[in-house]
């Protein structure tokens, strides 16, 4: 007899209690597994093909750049988990970068300057969340608009009374550039503290997301809003706090990038516009919400950074790297973020 739908299709099959590889490949760990395998494969190939790829120096620089991308992608991951996108991240990074450089040039003490920028970033994120709550489908455009406004405002503020536009010159305190520069040391060890900071933040975040009620609420909202509402989880509070965290981490990334480069430059955030989304997607967090996580994004960030370093080692320029990134996204998404066929959505 003809079945109305093909019962052997993956989308309609009942979950079985198969063990072993088949079960792992259907679980949430699939993304992590594929990502980790890709990372190991990339690293092996690169070490064979590029001289000095596995040297301590190169690994240090990969990790340093990964720390910046990782912190910038933190907010993007959280926002993607609840089904949104935050395109204001690169603009907040650029704005906080030049504003911090500007504050270092005034008599404001450095710790206070950092605090001001962090609060500003969180406030922008809060604004993003509140304004986009009612128009969640258009959140990416709204955050883009807020981002434009923020970066425009920050540049007007820092340019008034200065003849240089877009660049701010000031003295960055030595202890601050030690945190994020390639020659920085952590308690005498030969790696910049920002890598340790990134790991600490990552562990805290993953613990919070997996082990606390407020962390699980993010997945509940991303998975099914009606069900989450029945559990008395406030969608508004989760949505707004997620965007606030995104704004805060973007601002912190902008500050750390000032320590890395030593001079304020508003365009410093620009490469992060689509790279943060790429890191989230390559890691395996679905942009539809409800699955994935920061652990996956860390893998995604490392894959992108190892790949970048590999491509640079092979003599490819920025343009060619972008093409490879783009070509990488499609199969990764096809592996674990395909939506079911429309006939199974009814």
């Amino acid at each position, binding site marked *: 007899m003809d079945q109305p739908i093909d019962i052997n299709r993956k989308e309609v099959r009942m979950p079985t209690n198969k063990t072993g590889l088949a079960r792992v490949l259907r679980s949430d760990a699939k993304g992590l597994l594929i990502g980790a395998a890709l990372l190991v494969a990339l690293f092996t190939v690169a070490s064979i093909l590029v001289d000095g790829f596995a040297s301590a120096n190169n690994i240090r620089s990969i990790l340093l750049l990964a720390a910046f991308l990782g912190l910038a992608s933190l907010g993007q991951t959280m926002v993607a988990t609840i089904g949104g996108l935050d395109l204001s991240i690169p603009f907040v990074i650029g704005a906080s970068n030049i504003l911090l450089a500007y504050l270092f040039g005034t008599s404001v003490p450095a710790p206070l300057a950092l605090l001001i920028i962090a609060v500003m970033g969180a406030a922008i994120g809060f604004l993003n969340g509140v304004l986009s709550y009612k128009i969640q*489908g258009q959140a*990416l455009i709204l955050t883009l608009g807020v981002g*434009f406004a923020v970066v425009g405002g920050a540049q007007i503020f820092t*340019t008034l009374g200065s003849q240089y536009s877009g660049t701010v010159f000031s003295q960055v305190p030595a202890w601050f550039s030690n945190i994020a520069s390639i020659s920085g040391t952590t308690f005498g060890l030969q790696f910049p503290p920002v890598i340790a900071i990134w790991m600490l933040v990552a562990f805290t975040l993953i613990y919070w997301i997996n082990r606390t009620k407020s962390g699980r609420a993010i997945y509940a909202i991303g998975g099914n809003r009606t069900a989450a509402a029945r559990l008395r989880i406030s969608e508004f509070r989760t949505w707004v706090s997620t965007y606030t965290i995104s704004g805060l981490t973007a601002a912190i990334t902008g500050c750390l990038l000032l320590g890395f480069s030593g001079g304020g430059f508003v365009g410093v955030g620009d490469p992060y516009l689509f790279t943060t989304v790429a890191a989230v997607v390559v890691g395996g967090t679905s942009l539809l919400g409800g699955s994935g996580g920061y652990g996956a994004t860390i893998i995604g960030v490392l894959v992108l950074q190892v790949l970048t370093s590999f491509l640079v080692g092979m003599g490819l320029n920025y343009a060619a790297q*972008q*093409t490879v990134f783009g070509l990488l996204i*499609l199969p990764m998404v096809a592996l674990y973020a395909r939506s079911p066929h*429309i006939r199974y959505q009814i």
Partner: protein
Amino acid sequence: MLSNRLSHLWVPLGLVLILGIMAAVRAPQTFTYVGLAGALLVAAPLILAAVAITPIAIAGRGGVDLSIGPLIGFVNVTIVVWLSENGITHPILVFAYAILAACAWQMLLAAFIIFVRISPIIASLAGFMILQGVNLVILSRPGGVAPEWLGNWGWGTELLSPVLYILLAAFAIWFLFQRTAMFQHIRLMGADERTAYTSGVDIIKARFAAHLMAGVFAGLAALCLTGLIGSGDPTQGNTLTLQAITALVLGGTSLAGGKGGITGSVLGAVAMYLVFVVLSSFNFGAISGFMTQLLYGLMLVFALLVALVTTAPRTRAA
């Protein structure tokens, strides 16, 4: 019902009127014969880019074509490097190439969205990155020469220029397209894909059609851009992506799908051009670029919130 269907146009229309009056006061030369001809030439690529992404947005699934800018750039550099340098400069061939190349890319994008079933925004994001790189590989820095007849468009001294005819042709194509059943299918699919599918709409064909229309307009936009700059530029197109999306949203087309039209997108693009005109009439010196950025951002947020306020009561009543 007409007022209901056109209600999303009040915001962009108001913006254009206010900015138009400001421009008339601050920069009266804009509204002379030569001024208008120049304005038309400069604004045409953005207007056509905004028009191009409109059918994709109407087709729903949060579809916003991020790759539109690099696509226009791709057609621009390939006209210069592949056609012009090999002596292929006949207008019919160049027109056909531009439109076919853009349509081919849109078909590819649509095929990925439909058959691989990945969300449109990711497909177009990957497309953005791929084309951005490919453009720089084809032409590493701005240069080359456009076919002579195309480069001559860049004088911009005549109002009755090919650019005007292209814009008029684009509007004519759209308004004919709006009368077809296929357009209604696309709108229904954008508003509710499941309903469309269960009502027997061929959603595969409808999505391909939406992308095909986008390809036609993107090809025309690339021709106007090539005429404007008279050469090839691998990065100029990229900035068009964010500008076109801004114009689309200012024009009241919802990214949620099923609503909107090119009239709004055109008004949105004109409003953005007028902001630029008004701001450059003030002497902001070093910060004028930042003022433009700030105002674009505020306009975007404002347009979204106004659309929210004006549409909310009606959805509640329904």
